[in-house]
């Protein structure tokens, strides 16, 4: 943790509005992105953001600072978001197994040839990120288990390394990599079923 971060935390803990504003300027957008990415609910994400900044005020001065401040804030955000999700919307989360590629005994992909060679990757982003394709993508993200969404956001949106994500979520690098790969494959499968062989 930098000297400046340490100073901001200490001042925020004493009620210094300028210090808190500086912390909000630096971190509120990242906290919201991660909280929304895990909870998939704007009201839940808003509550998480409030709770994260309360913890920064109440516990920041005691933060020992072995890790970077940003990592500590990501960790608090992840934990509060996962707690918020506990027991909610399980019905949306499908088994990932049915969304992973299947293989023949010889190791080749199983399935209709038109489907396994479908390549929609040259479709313009404006088409993929709007209309029905966007809806399919958002629904596919909704269906991921929240622990998978946490890793997906930290890696692909926040662009942290596997090692940083492992520290934040308190899991091994191998587990993070597995979750990330399975999450991306599940999203890819659902997009391909939508865009698929017609591309």
């Amino acid at each position, binding site marked *: 943790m930098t000297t400046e971060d340490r100073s901001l935390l200490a001042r925020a803990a004493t009620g210094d509005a300028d210090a808190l504003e500086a912390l909000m300027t630096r971190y509120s957008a990242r906290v919201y992105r991660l909280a929304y990415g895990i909870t998939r609910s704007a009201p839940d994400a808003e509550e998480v953001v409030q709770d994260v900044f309360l913890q920064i005020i109440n516990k920041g001065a005691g933060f020992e600072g072995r890790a970077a401040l940003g990592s500590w804030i990501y960790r608090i955000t992840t934990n509060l978001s996962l707690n918020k999700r506990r027991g909610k919307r399980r019905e949306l989360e499908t088994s990932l197994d049915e969304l992973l*590629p299947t293989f023949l005994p010889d190791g080749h992909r199983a399935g209709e040839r038109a489907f396994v060679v479908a*390549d929609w990757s040259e479709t313009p982003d404006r088409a993929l990120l709007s209309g029905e394709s966007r809806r399919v993508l958002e629904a596919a993200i909704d269906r991921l288990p929240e622990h998978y969404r946490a890793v997906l956001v930290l890696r692909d949106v926040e662009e942290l390394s596997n090692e940083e994500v492992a520290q934040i979520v308190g899991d091994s690098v191998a587990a993070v990599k597995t979750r990330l790969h399975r999450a991306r494959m599940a999203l*890819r499968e659902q997009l391909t079923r939508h865009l698929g062989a017609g591309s």
Partner: protein
Amino acid sequence: MTCREAIDILADYVDGVMPAERAAELERHLAGCEPCRAYLATYRKTRELGAAAGRIDMPAEMLARLRRFLADKLRTV
């Protein structure tokens, strides 16, 4: 290398954290396998789309509410 083995290791390849020798082995498989080339292209695109979908801004009114909420809390610190 089989398609199963190729797809198993795509994340490290796409993320640029795969040792060069392993990457060359994967690329040899990809050169002769249309389904795996399609899988790689759509996997890479999926990563980009997921990232783009996740880059959302906190609504301005929510930020204003956060400021008011924290200002209230600071008064009691």
